[in-house]
């Protein structure tokens, strides 16, 4: 994808990841709502089934993509020359580095939680 189509890529990725996260939320909440007296064996059994492990991993990646596009939008909307003057580019880069660092942490921790089950 060329640099010119970055916006389109962000647009599509934000919506595809939104759909994945929406379905995952329904799936997890549905399971928890239908198992009020959930035992640990049942819970682990559900989460370590292969379809759920794959679904969880895809959702975790979707979370990172979705949060990145959203947080990027917030950053470029508010951290601008208009409010922060010449330092705005630097401040935005610091902000974006923080967002990426936290998301990479989620990705690492999340994958280890999911795949230590298998």
């Amino acid at each position: 994808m060329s640099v010119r189509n970055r916006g389109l890529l962000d647009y599509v990725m934000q919506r595809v990841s939104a759909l994945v996260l929406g379905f995952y939320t329904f799936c997890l909440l549905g399971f928890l709502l239908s198992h009020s007296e959930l035992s640990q064996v049942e819970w682990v059994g559900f989460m370590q089934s292969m379809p759920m492990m794959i679904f969880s991993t895809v959702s975790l990646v979707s979370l990172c993509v979705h949060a990145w596009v959203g947080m990027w939008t917030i950053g470029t909307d508010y951290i601008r020359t208009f409010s922060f003057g010449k330092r705005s580019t630097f401040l935005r880069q610091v902000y974006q580095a923080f967002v990426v660092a936290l998301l990479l942490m989620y990705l690492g921790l999340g994958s280890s939680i999911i795949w230590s089950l298998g």
Partner: protein
Amino acid sequence: MNTERPVNLTFSTIIRQPVHAVASFLHRVSGAFLFFGSAYLLFLLDRSLASELGLHGVRIRLDGTPETYLLWLILVALIYHVVAGTKHLLLDMHVGDTHAATVVSSYLVIIVSGVLATLAGFWLW
């Protein structure tokens, strides 16, 4: 950039916004909140899957404690973000994108989220 452009700094007119703007802003705020809230959800997921004792610990943590409010707030943000997001995806497909329709759907998003947030509260407590 034109630095001489007019700037509206009258607080009352900044705060008073049409319902679409409120609904849209809440979508953004709930998203930013979920960005941080995900850390807590991952923490609960880790504890609850780690061991029998871990899940028991999560149950104790969420038994009407201040932490229960934190989880409820995260769930409220999640509910709102999903409901408002559904509206957004429909708008992308040009479903209900007239002015009149968006006034109705914006109120609907807020009301539906409010009801679901209340139900989530009953579920947690």
